[in-house]
């Protein structure tokens, strides 16, 4: 059995992900198409929310991925700090914009749903507020990566920022609970079957979530490859200039 750490070798990483990427992309597209079409056209309207309920198929998966992208960055940063594998640092960097876009999708779809349902585009509800704060964390993280020229320094600094930011993001999440009462409903999904949404909505939603997860993985693989190749190119150019 090959060790997981073999993929820390950039060459091995690119070889493996090159093989996986087409499959992942096709699978992501398939599950998303199936999930979204099933969700949008073949599920009944909710008796109170009408057809706006269908925004759940974009809102819930994107919100889920927005948080999990940060979690993945946290793990990748830890791996970089402990084992100093460059691929890991680059994967964290690659995931940040994807996570930020997921955050924006979740916020935007939430606003579009909130306008007819709550009568407002935005409310200072704990969940909404903490998502906005999460978005700010993504912005700061990406800005720090972009601002520092030396790759290793940037990787180190952003990794520590990610660790500290995670702690403060969690603190903020619970602090805003204290600060304002919620308008947002509780979680729609849980392992406890009683609390789940009805099955008609549940199964297409599972497809959409799977699609978003696959899409995220594919995008991170692709962007990590790009980062590795960009870095290689810079190294080659530098060597050429030295003659």
């Amino acid at each position, binding site marked *: 059995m090959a060790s997981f750490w073999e993929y820390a070798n950039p060459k091995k990483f690119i070889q493996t992900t090159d093989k996986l990427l087409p499959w992942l992309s096709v699978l992501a597209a398939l599950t998303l198409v199936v999930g979204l079409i099933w969700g949008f056209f073949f599920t009944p309207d909710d008796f109170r929310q009408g057809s706006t309920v269908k925004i759940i198929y974009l809102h819930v998966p994107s919100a889920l991925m927005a948080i999990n992208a940060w979690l993945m960055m946290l793990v990748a940063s830890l791996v970089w700090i402990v084992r100093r594998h460059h691929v890991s640092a680059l994967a964290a960097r690659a995931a940040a914009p994807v996570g930020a876009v997921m955050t924006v999708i979740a916020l935007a779809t939430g606003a579009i749903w909130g306008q007819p349902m709550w009568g407002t585009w935005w409310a200072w509800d704990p969940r909404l507020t903490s998502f906005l704060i999460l978005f700010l964390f993504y912005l700061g993280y990406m*800005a*720090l990566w972009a601002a520092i020229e030396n790759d290793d*320094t940037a990787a*180190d600094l952003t990794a*520590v920022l990610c660790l500290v930011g995670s702690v*403060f993001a969690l603190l*903020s999440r619970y602090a805003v609970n*204290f600060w304002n009462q919620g308008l947002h409903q509780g979680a729609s999904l849980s392992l406890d079957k009683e609390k789940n949404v009805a099955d008609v909505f549940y199964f297409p939603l599972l497809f959409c979530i799977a699609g978003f997860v696959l899409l995220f993985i594919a995008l991170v693989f692709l962007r990590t490859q790009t980062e590795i190749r960009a870095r290689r190119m810079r190294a080659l150019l530098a060597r050429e200039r030295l003659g």
Partner: protein
Amino acid sequence: MKALLLRDIRLAVRAGGGFGLGLAFFLIVVVLVPFGVGPDSGLLARIAPGILWLGALLSCLLSLDRIFALDWEDGSLDLLATAPLPMEALVSIKSLAHWLTTGVPLVLASPLFALLLSLPSQGYAPLLMSLALGTPALSVIGTFGAALTVGLKRGGLLLSLLVLPLYVPTLIFGAEVARRGAMGLDFTVPLAMLAGITFGAIALLPFASAAVLRVNLR
């Protein structure tokens, strides 16, 4: 350690006006608010705790880049890093000096500014308590941000983007203490939370700041 602390304080007080600047900025924020929202004293009294906290936070932010920038430019930071003093102690001293030169004056001046915003009289003690407890956290978190951006040429804007999200929990609990105090409600729970955040930050963040500073001095 004591020598370093005294040196930093002396530098802040004597050279470059960093000392009074924060206070002046705080005053301007407080003066500008009534122009923005109107002179109605009922409204001012209601938003006074939040405005005072925001003003304190912003004027704290304003002076953050001074923590390391001057020492970085003239090379004394490298000397300090090679001194027998551990890096964690160095950043702790730096935050302490920053708090003594910006946080403490802000706390002491806040009753005067609260007067301008017609804060109800029962609100003064909680406001002072929350600022006294909260501003050390602002300094310690700010030191982390300053350590992150120390090597950058135009780090000022980036520093705000990095530090302001980290200030959210402190601001929430601090302003909540002041708000509840002004309304005559019980404020012990947010005060305890604020104390928790401050002491937690003081205990843990210097390690992160020191790690980051080491990377930047590499």
